[in-house]
């Protein structure tokens, strides 16, 4: 039978995802999407995957949702946009969602299911430690590559930001140091 907690969480996710599509205000959509992402985190917790669940909260609620909201505010101004996203490209949307659904469904159907009886959750005590150990031993190369990639992205972002601001900064000119600007510290 379906676990009542699973039912509640699944409803939360579906409701959040639906609201994210249907609401007219983009900020509301973003917050509804956050709700759905939080529901996914709860689902991980329900399955006993503490580390993944908390990481989901930390990354998606703490960073990604804020990023989305900032992007909306910076592009649409304070009003948060008007029209719903439901107007154009309906056929394309249906096609894409069908493909995604088929891929996900195929993956679920072809995966090995645990027998119905063994609903006992895996002990979560070693899970966090195991993830740490594996990340530091077997998966050290992917981890390092990801770190390198993120660092490259970070430096790229800094360079992009510097290029646009460099000409306006007074302290980059060799002669006129910050002394000409009494209120500013120059850095």
């Amino acid at each position, binding site marked *: 039978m379906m676990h009542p907690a699973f039912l509640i969480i699944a409803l939360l996710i579906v409701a959040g995802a639906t609201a994210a599509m249907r609401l007219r205000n983009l900020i509301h959509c973003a917050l509804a999407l*956050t709700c759905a992402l939080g529901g996914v985190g709860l689902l991980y917790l329900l399955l006993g995957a503490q580390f993944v669940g908390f990481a989901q*909260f*930390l990354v998606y*609620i703490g*960073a990604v949702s*804020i990023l989305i909201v900032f992007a909306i505010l910076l592009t649409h101004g304070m009003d*948060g946009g008007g029209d719903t996203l439901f107007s154009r490209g309906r056929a394309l949307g249906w096609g894409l969602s069908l493909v995604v659904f088929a891929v996900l469904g195929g993956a679920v159907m072809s995966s090995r299911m645990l027998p119905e009886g063994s609903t006992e959750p895996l002990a979560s005590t070693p899970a966090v430690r195991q993830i740490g150990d594996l990340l530091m031993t077997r998966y050290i190369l992917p981890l390092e590559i990801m770190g390198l990639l993120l660092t490259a992205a970070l430096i790229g972002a800094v360079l992009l930001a510097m290029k646009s601001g460099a000409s306006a900064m007074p302290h980059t000119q060799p002669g006129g140091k*910050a002394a000409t600007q009494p209120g500013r510290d120059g*850095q």
Partner: protein
Amino acid sequence: MAETLDQLFVLAKHALVDSTPAAWRPWVSSILSIAAMIMAFATLFALTTILERKGLGRIQNRLGPNRVGPFGLLQPLADGVKSLTKEDLVPRSADRVLHFLAPLVLVIPVFLALAVVPVGRNMVAVDLDAGILFFFAVGAATELSVFMAGWSSRNKYSVLGAMRAVSQMISYEIPLILSALPVVMITGSLSTVQIVERQAVFTGLLPSWNVLTPWGLAAFLLFLIAGTAEANRCPFDLPEGESEIIAGYYTEYSGFKFALFFLGEYIGLFAMSGLAITLFLGGWSAPLAALAFIPGYVWFFGKLLALIFLFIWVRGTLPRLRMDQLMNFAWKFMLPMSLMTILSAGAWHLMSPTPGVPLSSAEAVTHSAGGTIARWLVCGFLVAAPYILLGRYLTEGRNVGPRTYRYAD
């Protein structure tokens, strides 16, 4: 006797739980833990409001509240009644749902974060294996709450305050988490309970608190600074600077919702201080072996009050930062320094007498004197050298001495 006193609340809870039918026990146990946490920290909140106003008054050479009760001690009660009976104003163009939800989204996560902070031996609401991660994960929701409050008010000051707050919180969350990382590395566990237990052993006269190591001291200071910024407290209170943007994201809040925001800020501060105590100051453990007979919860709340005093002192002393100073400080100073503390903690681990062994058992091994001195020198150098170099570099070409006033003298 000391043992009983230390475990007084734990024993009382067990007695209460055992007196109920077996089917209720998990529920009764949870509810008792939650009720005790909320009661204790809500009382501490009331106490802190009066302490802060009195302390600030003292620093600013005035009396502070002194009308309600003896020495003004009943002031929190009066404040509570006032905020409950005030009219709840919502701007006409505000987004009513989000405006209502924002204080709740702030208060619930900060109370959740308290759940993993051990306030005494065996006194933690939930002992999670990923306790530290849980703390930061629920803390992430507060940024969303601040944004919701600012945006839903439909007020320019509110939006400005929210944008400032969110960018500040995101910037300082990175050094915050990175400065908690050395402790996790050294302990080899994300569980708050294990982190405290590892610090609660004595080597000679001194406890093995993390703050008493070079990397620990640096990480503790970084954690405190980042925690102050995360809690939007002075000198990082730009998001709610009264003189610039009225009250930032809660300009449009009144009555009980404002009180909830106020509560959320303080509980968040307690949670942050509690985690700082857990990570660096040995949690509930006594500073001297001879003082271990005093119950652990007394030590924990004593340390908490000391940290709160420090925060009040800082608020009364330091001026507010500017936005560019804030961001420069976060990215050019806090971030490199927190990375260096991680490096220093790694060196500390490698230079321990038995590097391969988990440290909880390795600490019991007696260190050779020369090895200990070399370890301290190397780890201290790894923290001090970047501090000096960064400080030199960042203050280069700036007048950081005392200001001269041309007309005021």
